[in-house]
């Protein structure tokens, strides 16, 4: 079947389930996991439901440019992201790491005036073609933000938010919530206060809650934008362990400012840098993309070496 179909806007009744709590019949008939909840409504192809090649390619980016209005933030980025691995994006502040990360789930659409050129293929489907519905993309490509951003709702409702949108049955939600919190290594800490506000959690707990919330909808890919930047070393360690665990099931792309972290957790590393042109516009570009072990031991580009050894380039 055509993998493209899976990302298109669904028939009207499926869309209606966004607004009401009552999902359409197909969704409530399916067995009770978030994954089936998400995918059952969609015309699932072999590609999406897991018969994909062992070490397939999830994203292929070719000549990606990103503009904010007239300002070109990122120029000519081409790289492929492998399945079930951790890809780290590193580079100096303002080089466009977040901008690039947000291309993978069309999050830049939310920014007025932002424009993406070039192609970003997701399992061979160009995410930026007209027929693709960004909402469907985001259900497959989840995101964890730099600052923990739980909803002002209970812990339970935070996790259940995504699955509910996807039409997971009420009776199945408890399991989804427990499962997600367990995988995010938060269950033991919060199991007795699921109905309490997520704002009562510490920063590190909130960030793990956001991770749990992102994986509760069983995405294929989890994008993480400096998920540990606001955390202490212990919470950071927890989240790194979690990432190592998650990569058996998910593809992870992570932005980090912490070189050691990139070295510890990632399989591939992309180093970005900014180049000021003759008119003083600072445009980010991809300098080097290679297996992490190579980048940190034997980088090709002198700029990479300067950056990772602390002689910032």
């Amino acid at each position, binding site marked *: 079947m055509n993998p493209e179909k899976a990302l298109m806007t669904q028939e009207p009744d499926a*869309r209606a389930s*966004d*607004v009401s709590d009552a999902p359409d019949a197909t969704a409530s008939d399916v067995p009770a996991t978030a994954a089936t909840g*998400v995918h059952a409504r969609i015309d699932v192809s072999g590609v999406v439901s897991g018969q994909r090649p062992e070490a397939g390619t999830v994203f292929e980016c070719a000549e990606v440019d990103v503009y904010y209005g007239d300002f070109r933030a990122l120029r000519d980025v081409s790289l492929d992201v492998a399945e079930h691995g951790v890809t780290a994006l590193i580079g100096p502040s303002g080089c466009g790491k977040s901008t690039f990360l947000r291309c993978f*789930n069309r*999050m830049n659409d*939310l920014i*007025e005036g932002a424009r993406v050129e070039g192609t970003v293929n997701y399992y061979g489907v160009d995410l930026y073609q007209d027929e693709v519905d960004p*909402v*469907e993309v*985001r*259900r497959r490509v*989840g*995101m964890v*933000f730099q*600052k923990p*951003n*739980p*909803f*002002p*709702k*209970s812990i339970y409702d935070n996790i259940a*938010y*995504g699955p509910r*949108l*996807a039409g997971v049955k009420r009776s199945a939600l408890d399991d989804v919530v427990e499962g997600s919190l367990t995988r995010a290594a938060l269950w033991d800490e919060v199991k007795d206060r699921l109905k309490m*506000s*997520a*704002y009562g959690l510490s920063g590190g707990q909130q960030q793990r809650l*956001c991770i749990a*919330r*992102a994986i509760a*909808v069983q995405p294929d890919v989890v994008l993480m934008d400096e998920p540990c930047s606001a955390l202490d070393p212990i919470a950071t360690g927890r989240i790194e362990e979690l990432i190592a665990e998650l990569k058996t099931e998910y593809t992870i792309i992570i932005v980090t400012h912490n070189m050691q972290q990139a070295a510890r957790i990632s399989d591939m590393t992309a180093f970005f840098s900014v180049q000021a042109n003759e008119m003083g516009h600072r445009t980010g570009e991809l300098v080097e993309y290679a297996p992490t072990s190579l980048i940190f031991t034997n980088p090709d580009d002198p700029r990479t070496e300067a950056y990772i050894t602390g002689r910032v380039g």
Partner: protein
Amino acid sequence: MTPDHLTAADLQTSLGRRIRSQTVRWLFMGAAAVTVLVSALIIWTVASGAWTFISQVEFTRLTDIGWFPRRGLFDLTTLLVNSAQISVIAMAVAVPSGFGAAFYLSEYAHPRVRRVMKPTLELLASVPSVVLGVFAISFITPSILTNFFSEINFFNKLAAGIAVGLLVIPLIASISEDALRAVPQALREASAGLGARRVTTSIRVVLPAAMSGLMAATIVGFSRAIGETMVVTIASGGGDTSLYNLSLFESGGTLTSAMAALGLGTDQVAGNNLAFQSLFFLGALLFAMTLVLNMVGDVIVRRLQNRY
């Protein structure tokens, strides 16, 4: 440079500067005191007038056939019912359109559209209420309402309620829009990142997060509606007298329009039995109602904020 020998005198300001800052301090305090004093004076005047009325009126007169102060008939129900009817109609008009406009401006409108629409809305807020009163009798009733309700009176509560509603829309829209825009963008991104459409995000994330602000907008709007005088005086035609009736198609005076009529004193109201004193009584009643409303609003807002 380290001073050899530091004394307290080295760190003192000059006398002139100290006097100046003291003077400024007293000036500000005086200004604050004046506002407090004026408020106290108003409350005292109203309360003592109201007391004169209450202590002298025969209580049966408070529940008679209607509001005819010069004949000594002070049926409060008439005025309260009319005020309530008109305010409820006003809110039925203003809340949906005010919230709708706020959601549109905050969640949907392109910045360019917002730049045009926001000032337009504020323009509506600056329309003097007397103009809206005239608009009600010259347009709302004759050009719209008569097409639907042939038996409608030229002066009627329905048109008055609609016009008050129009008056309150910008107020509610503007407070609500501030409340919606105060919801952090990070929450919208979180919701979108989980595959929520814009409607879903608006209803499930933005709305609950802004709930206390929206409640505040509603309550401020309601007290504005119930206190509105000019529109109802013109459009509802209650004026100095009104007979008890529940029909929205009939004219009827409210607490405020009755006060306005009494205050104008067209028929030598002053000195004529208790009519003039009833003005203060109505004022006190109105004041108490808005006060209670604001307090209830405060409680609701605080409770909503504390929920999470």
